[in-house]
């Protein structure tokens, strides 16, 4: 019997988010098509290593969230909480790397108005950054719930709903990283 993990409402929210990011990606791609040299030159100055490191951190956080959900399916509340804490640590690592990246950009006088590429780079990544912050709040709330033994095979809805949101944040980054940091 097919079953959608988590609350139906979160899936409509996820679709809306994917649509918003999709429009953003299309706008970036077509603006780039008309400003190839500028986009390629300014992309080359980005810290690709930081982008790749952040991809690893988000994927690893997603993996830890999966392990947390699997632990809850086995009624292992403490293990569920520990996996969620590990995911929170990875998410925090992502935010720290991004803050360093932004501070380096601002030192080079990069701003929303400095060029079309920088406008997209800053707005796209910051829009995503805000989603990671919300994801962290959700993970912390789930960690708190797991520590109190809230999740079990009889009550997975809250955990699956939050997990679906976190995976969406990861999914969007899987397009954003190659698009903004690699494709030229």
């Amino acid at each position: 019997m097919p079953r959608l993990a988590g609350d139906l409402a979160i899936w409509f929210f996820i679709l809306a988010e994917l649509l918003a990011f999709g429009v953003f990606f299309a706008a970036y791609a077509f603006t780039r098509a008309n400003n190839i040299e500028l986009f390629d030159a300014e992309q080359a100055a980005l810290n690709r290593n930081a982008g790749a490191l952040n991809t690893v951190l988000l994927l690893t956080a997603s993996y830890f969230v999966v392990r947390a959900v699997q632990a809850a399916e086995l009624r292992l509340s403490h293990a569920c909480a520990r996996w969620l804490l590990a995911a929170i640590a990875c998410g925090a690592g992502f935010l720290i790397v991004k803050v360093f990246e932004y501070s380096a950009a601002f030192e080079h006088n990069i701003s929303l108005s400095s060029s079309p590429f920088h406008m997209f780079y800053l707005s796209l990544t910051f829009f995503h950054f805000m989603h990671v912050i919300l994801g962290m709040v959700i993970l912390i709330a789930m960690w708190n719930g797991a520590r109190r033994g809230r999740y079990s095979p009889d009550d997975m809805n809250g955990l699956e709903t939050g997990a679906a949101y976190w995976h969406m944040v990861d999914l969007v980054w899987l397009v954003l990283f190659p698009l903004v940091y690699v494709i030229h």
Partner: protein
Amino acid sequence: MNSVIHGTPRRATVLWATLIFATLLTWGMGVLGATGKGAIALLAVISFWKGAVIILDFMALRHAPLLWRVLTLGWMVLVWAVIAIAYIKGLPQ
């Protein structure tokens, strides 16, 4: 009680390792300065594959009604199709 749909730890660990490997591949293509239609096709395939793992396994949509897989995987296809069209449009004539 809900049906168990989130797979085994072993499967999740293997998928995570392949996702990390695929990320290193994308990063390596950036370091090597890979460019052109072939490079973007490979980047699109890697990104789509990674997205499919997140959608089907991590989000557990493999066990959801077909419509949800169509909507999410369809989003990946559409986004990469648009990126590819824009990329080709920007190539020197």
